[in-house]
């Protein structure tokens, strides 16, 4: 059995596991250090009740948050990273992939599939930060390209939930080219009038910001997400001074005209549905404005 097959067996084993949340499980809010009980967090969509910090969701949690129950079917599975450069820093890339496949139970830093949102058929991609920092290599690029081509062929709206440190260094030039590859397909959706909604969550940086994540017909960000091209540390070193408060936050991007709206997680599904309906069937399903606060 090749290591790929072994890794795939491992993936099945992990995803099959049922995850129950025990009563006494808690963690500290990374923003305000408040004690948060997981039961309560789950009810609150993993948003801190004290400071409104949006904790990171798993891929399945985003899927369940956005899709109509029972409508999701994952597509383009079985695509796995190789090590085309024979890349090695402290560890070889091949070993890193193997370990990450085993640890995360995922094939790579994105899943794509078809689903319905408020009854509208869509193509959806959800990135996963746990898989090598959500970095984009050949597999992420290929899955996105195929999902977008499905959207184009079926004339279904496409949606990508981004969270990524950017292009994957271990595939160097090939990772860079995924930016062009994914953006090139988006040029066709745009010409054909197939809507694309980009949802930017914490953090979205580098090559992902410099490709599909910035190219939504509508760009939606979660509150206080870090979104930018260059990493804050790189910028700090370049300009050799402190960065202003709130630099590269969702709120900063909204102010500078790079995103259309900031939507708290609780409102994400109804707002996304309202946007999609505007494009697809022209039906107004918006919550009355007073209700949105």
């Amino acid at each position: 059995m090749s290591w790929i097959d072994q890794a795939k067996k491992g993936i099945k084993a992990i995803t099959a596991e049922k995850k129950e949340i025990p009563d006494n499980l808690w963690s500290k809010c990374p923003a305000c250090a408040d004690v948060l009980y997981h039961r309560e967090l789950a009810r609150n969509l993993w948003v801190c009740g004290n400071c409104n910090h949006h904790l990171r969701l798993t891929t399945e949690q985003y899927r369940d948050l956005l899709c109509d129950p029972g409508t999701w079917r994952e597509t383009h599975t079985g695509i796995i990273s190789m090590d085309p450069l024979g890349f090695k820093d402290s560890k070889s890339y091949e070993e890193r992939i193997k370990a990450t496949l085993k640890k995360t139970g995922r094939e790579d830093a994105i899943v794509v599939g078809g689903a319905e949102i408020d009854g509208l058929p869509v193509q959806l991609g959800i990135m996963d930060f746990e898989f090598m920092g959500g970095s984009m290599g050949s597999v992420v690029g290929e899955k996105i390209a195929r999902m977008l081509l499905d959207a184009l062929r079926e004339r279904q709206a496409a949606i990508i939930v981004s969270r990524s440190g950017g292009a994957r260094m271990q595939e160097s030039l090939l990772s860079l080219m995924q930016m062009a590859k994914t953006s090139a397909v988006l040029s066709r959706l745009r010409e054909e009038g197939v809507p694309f909604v980009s949802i930017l969550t914490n953090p979205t940086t580098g090559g992902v910001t410099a490709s599909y994540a910035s190219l939504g017909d509508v760009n939606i960000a979660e509150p206080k997400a870090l979104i930018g091209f260059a990493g804050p540390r790189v910028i700090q070193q370049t300009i050799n001074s402190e960065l202003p408060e709130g630099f590269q936050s969702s709120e900063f991007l909204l102010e500078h005209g790079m995103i259309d709206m900031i939507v708290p997680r609780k409102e994400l599904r109804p707002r996304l549905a309202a946007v999609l309906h505007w494009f697809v069937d022209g039906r107004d399903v918006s919550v009355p404005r007073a209700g949105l606060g």
Partner: protein
Amino acid sequence: MNPKTTPWLEFEKPIVELEERIRTLEDSASLRGLDVTDEVQRLRERVMSLGREIFDSLDDWQRVQLARHPRRPTTQDYLRLIFDSFNELHGDRAFRDDPSLITGLAFLGRRPVMVIGHQKGRDTKSNIHRNFGMAHPEGYRKAMRVMELAARNRRPIVTFIDTPGAYPGLGAEERGQGEAIARNLRDMAALPVPVLVFVTGEGGSGGALAIGVGNRVYMLENSIYSVISPEGCAAILWRDRAKAADAARAMKITARDALRLGVIDAVLPEPTGGAHRDHIATAAVLKSRIIADLDELASVGAEDLRRQRLDKFLAMGIFQEG
């Protein structure tokens, strides 16, 4: 460029010194009326063999240094040496003109083309003016503006890539560096005219690719192309910028690697010793390639050009399936 002060790289110094000796010998011989033909001939042969010795076995880090060589020809040099005329076009029509990326109307013989290229400086002063070839969003937006102008007027586009990367600064982020690059990647893919791309020096990350979505993509022999600078990669993965040479080797950034990975169409040869040793010969190689490609693509229809470009980039990536 001041030939006296522009530095040479450590590994090319033996050749440069030998050439200097030949010049001195010839000068003093002609002054005194002596015949030094044999001696000069012997030294010339030595230069040749030394050149082969050094340049046939360059390691990846030496290529990085050659790609960044302060004497290496820049876009302005190619404009002068390849094209018959050039009228620069300035500005993105929204914020300002970015001098680190130049664009304009050029003629190659009777062929009107749009030329776009990163521009580095030659010395500290010009490098500050050119921001070391690192463009802001307005640079990429200017590039896209003139590419669309070329498209509307059915003129082919030629780009020269030579940048350490897109500029990572406050203003660049405020004005949407990510969006500017992303939009170029998307809209270049849809251009209905031939797009020829030449990586002539440093192909630094998204800032390079932002003018790099072509029907044909070439790299000069000693140019480099990578997702992040070797220093940046070393800082992240090795936690030490000084490990840049290791990172350069690991990332496979040479033209030959890019060809092997299916990212470029061909490696274009440089004169022995590198492009900076003979700007004219280097430009001649680029010029003949541009002319050949423009002639070949002139008969290809707009839809086929777009289709070919999309398919080319869709095919990029290496993975396992099944």
